[in-house]
């Protein structure tokens, strides 16, 4: 997770560079905000908002007068494998979208009820999500599922406009990705339950290095099935109070999308899509779409324990199932200061013409000052102007080519 004191406001931040606009418009938003406050503060606010807003949103979404039920919903939604794994890999923009989903669902339900000017609530709730393409799509899906068919066209119109900052610049590129990424970034089994039960337990991210050790708990597949069963029973009870089945259907869709690459015949289909259909690269690392399952799971589970006297035990169980998320993953997440050299190089480059190239060309670095952890190269977000980067990715030594091939060849020639 890379934040810098003051991120440069360049064409790439708006998706107008040579590379596929992946971090758009979030780079522009962060660049603008860090002109006023330090990136360090922005990062802390974002991380606090992710945990706080996701829990509070899920709690408020449950129609109940029992605080304990709301606590269970909050814990189930904000303390799970999805949050842990995406936090550890550094996908904070995706988690910002995840945190917005309960609020989007509330706004969608208000639209369904025909509340006056409910669309303004939907716009406001969607704003944190639309800073990234996956977040924007997650929010749009949630809004469609909650607002109902009669309001679908309004929701789609709002979604298309709010997501324009990333899909409009995408039109400048061919939008095709390397099909090798399908297998490299497919869902992964974290225990004997395999990828299916790992994903249904909201985990299953492709990268084994960011998976909390507790996900190897041999009891987890059984507990996952029991918790999902309880959540379905809870949704049945909840369906008498609010329209939850479209949200549950969306959750099933999310799980299916997350698992496509590990289902029989899934890989060739996805490879063909990604190779020939612009934008289908969004289906790469498809485990991210299981975020849609988290919300119906959390509110369903909360309502399932509504009649129990010791309902808070469920919250304790959920916390106990993932103890290694606590205290920033017990040392996995900690703030690191840039050495003074970085500021010195930045000073030297200010007002110099041309782009910056950092060798060896690699999107990832390991520095002594960050305990040699693999991290995203901070140079494009630290140094002024535009920094040439190689956007190819290596997964276990296997290279997944980036989309900016012309630029990579140019940089290699230098």
């Amino acid at each position, binding site marked *: 997770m890379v934040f810098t004191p003051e991120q440069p406001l360049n064409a790439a931040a708006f998706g107008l560079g040579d590379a596929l606009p992946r971090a758009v418009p979030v780079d522009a938003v962060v660049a603008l905000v860090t002109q006023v406050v330090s990136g360090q503060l922005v990062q802390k606010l974002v991380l606090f908002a992710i945990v706080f807003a996701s829990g509070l949103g899920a709690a408020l979404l449950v129609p109940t007068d029992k605080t304990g039920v709301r606590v269970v919903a909050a814990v189930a939604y904000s303390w799970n494998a999805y949050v842990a794994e995406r936090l550890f*890999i550094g996908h904070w923009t995706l988690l910002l979208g995840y945190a917005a989903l309960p609020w989007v669902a509330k706004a969608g339900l208000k639209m369904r009820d025909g509340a006056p000017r409910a669309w303004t609530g939907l716009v406001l709730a969607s704003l944190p999500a639309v800073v990234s393409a996956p977040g924007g799509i997650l929010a749009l899906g949630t809004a469609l599922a909650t607002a109902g068919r009669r309001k679908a066209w309004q929701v789609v119109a709002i979604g298309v406009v709010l997501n324009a900052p990333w899909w409009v610049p995408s039109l400048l590129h061919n939008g095709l990705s390397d099909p090798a990424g399908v297998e*490299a970034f497919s869902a*992964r089994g974290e225990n004997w339950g395999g990828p299916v039960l790992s994903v249904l337990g909201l985990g299953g991210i*492709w*990268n*084994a*290095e*960011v998976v*909390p*050790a*507790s996900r190897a708990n041999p009891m987890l597949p059984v507990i996952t099935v029991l918790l999902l069963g309880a959540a379905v029973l809870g949704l049945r009870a909840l369906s008498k109070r609010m329209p939850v089945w479209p949200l549950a259907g969306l959750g099933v869709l999310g799980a299916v999308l997350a698992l496509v690459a590990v289902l029989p015949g899934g890989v060739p289909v996805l490879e063909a899509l990604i190779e020939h259909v612009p934008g289908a690269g969004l289906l790469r690392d498809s485990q991210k779409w299981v975020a849609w399952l988290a919300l119906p799971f959390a509110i369903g589970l909360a309502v399932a324990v509504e009649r129990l*006297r*010791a309902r*808070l*035990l469920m919250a*304790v*169980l959920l*916390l*106990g199932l993932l*103890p*290694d998320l*606590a*205290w920033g993953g*017990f*040392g*996995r997440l900690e703030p690191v200061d840039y050495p003074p050299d970085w500021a010195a190089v930045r000073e030297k480059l200010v007002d110099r013409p041309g782009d910056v190239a950092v060798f*060896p060309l*690699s*999107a*990832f*670095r*390991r520095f002594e000052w960050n*305990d*040699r*952890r*693999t991290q995203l190269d901070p140079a494009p977000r630290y140094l002024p102007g535009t920094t040439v980067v*190689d956007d*190819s*990715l*290596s*997964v*276990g*030594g296997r*290279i997944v080519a980036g989309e900016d091939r012309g630029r990579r060849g140019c940089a290699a020639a230098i």
Partner: protein
Amino acid sequence: MGLVSFLVAVVAGAALAGGVGAVVVAQNHPDKVVEQRQEQGQKAAEPEVLDYGSR
């Protein structure tokens, strides 16, 4: 009785979280790997392209 059992459950949960967490830290803390490498006097060969992650 309900309150007592709730408190017991909270304490037990916290103890479980702390215990498992401590084990996790001891085994998997990123610094630990670096320390071990330094103790063994090993210097890792730097690949040209670093892994984003591994499966």
